[in-house]
């Protein structure tokens, strides 16, 4: 239970960084931290007490295994977040070209 609470605390750290930092690159890194927190919680959900890794090996009897499905889901989720991070970095570079700054308080032409 305390592990889940720590995961949630990591998520909140990422959210804090997202809301208070002014540099575009730091916002992208904070989003990455939030993604790691969610992935970690997913893998922790698959844990079974006193179980082995979920790989069959020739010759050995089949032991009790941890749940392999969250691990597959986390793989997919990591690749998706990789794509979003690449898109955000490309947008940040374009924003630097147009606005000449990485500071998000200066990038405010849209109002209302």
């Amino acid at each position: 239970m305390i592990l889940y609470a720590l995961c949630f605390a990591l998520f909140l750290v990422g959210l804090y960084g997202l809301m208070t930092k002014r540099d575009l690159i730091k916002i992208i890194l904070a989003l990455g931290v939030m993604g790691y927190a969610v992935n970690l919680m997913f893998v922790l959900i698959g844990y079974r007490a006193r179980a082995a890794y979920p790989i069959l090996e020739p010759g050995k009897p089949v032991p009790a295994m941890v749940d392999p499905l969250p691990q597959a889901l986390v793989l997919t989720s990591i690749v998706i977040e990789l794509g979003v991070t690449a898109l955000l970095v490309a947008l940040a570079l374009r924003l630097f070209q147009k606005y000449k700054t990485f500071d998000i308080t200066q990038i405010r032409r849209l109002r209302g």
Partner: protein
Amino acid sequence: MILPTFIIVPLLAAFLIVLCGGRRDRAGVLIGGAAAAALAALSVVAFINGRGEAAVYVMGAWKVPLGISLVLDPLSSLMLVMVSLITLTSLLYSVAYIRRLEGEGKYYALLMILVAGMNGVILTSDLFNLFVFMEIALFAAFALVAYGGRAQEYEAAFKYAVMGSISSSLILFAIAVVYSSTSALSMSTIAAILPQRDPVLTLWAGGLFLAGFGLKAAVMPFHAWLPDAHSSAPAPISAMLSGVLIKALGIYALIRVFYNVLGAPPVFLQAFLVLGAVSMTVGVLLAIGQWDIKRLLAYHSISQIGYILIGMGLGTTLGMAGALFHLFNHAVFKSLLFYNAGALETALGTRDLRAMGNVTRLLPITARTSMVASLSISGLPPFNGFFSKLVIILAALQAGQPVFAGLAVVGSLLTLASFMKVQRYGLRSERPAGALQAKVSWGMNAAMVVLAVLCVATSLMIVPGIRETILDPAVRVVMEKARVWTAVFGK
């Protein structure tokens, strides 16, 4: 047999466009147009066939709950028809509009990926598969918002991308909560097992899903990305985003998850009502003060989504019928309004209402279709907006919530006021307009005329004979809540 083609055809078209296209966009237009036409035909065929019972397609021959299956029931086929219709008209509209901007074929590839993602969200019956297809559609949407290359578009796309990522993390959290309690990801298994678990977990999952999908659907506390993104995007993309994306990804996912999987707990229906009322009134109040026509239309999108949420939150059959009817109507008239704004921007070179003049003679089709769309969104007969709003108001009165019915009427009046302002300042003002900067091509005119005709035609859906075939099966699928999966999977 045709269920996976809804996802295969746009994906194949997208990557063929990337393979064959060069600097010119001819390959993009041809392949994209062929794919959109094929999808429209297939969705009509699926709609006619799927009116009775649902069709299930197990992919990879792995049976549920081990595998992922696609389900076509009347609600899905209604959404598929809506998506392919707006895609076809957007493609027709985009040909001349995008040539004016940059003119590369990648726009059509991104549009096809957007359509593939939305079709996947509508058809799937597995919760994580819904998340993956939603991310696919969102990638394409982020890239398309930034397509024009101006500074404001990049800023809007960055904000949209950051907020979209936060909501995706919340949805993943919710899927983790659901998986940890039921050990299943397929919607039918979750719907069967979840009532036997701790009800606190349903509340947790429901709250996180509401926050995540609510941000995609732009309900009121989470709406902040929508005015920037929809006003900065190119006009056909604004129409696709506002017309189908926030509905397929946001509202449809909310209906599926809250009605069919979580079984519509009353606390969330109350939340829908409150959030819907807030969206409706604050959206239209913020819209009245806008002078940029696309920003005004974006705030009106928030307000109309509020109507749909009120219909969903009432929990009765009539309310759900009103919500689905308004969903379809809003796709039609909001896309038409964005096409008009794009035509005005192409012809006059500005988006500010104070700088426009009287275009009734110069752009006759734009002026007349914009009058049709404005009357539709304000809810005047005989256009479709009147009938769907009437159903929602009657449902609110019937369910014993007169406050929401009153708020809906007030919202309609304020919408009418705001669109009369658009017409008076923008299209029919006393000042004569300057010379046209660019011609509005025949593709743009054709798309606008098609949607304007549909604005009148879809009001026929209220007629009892037609309503039985189109709207009632979809409502029945939703109201059966968790029992719909036994009808589908026959367990």
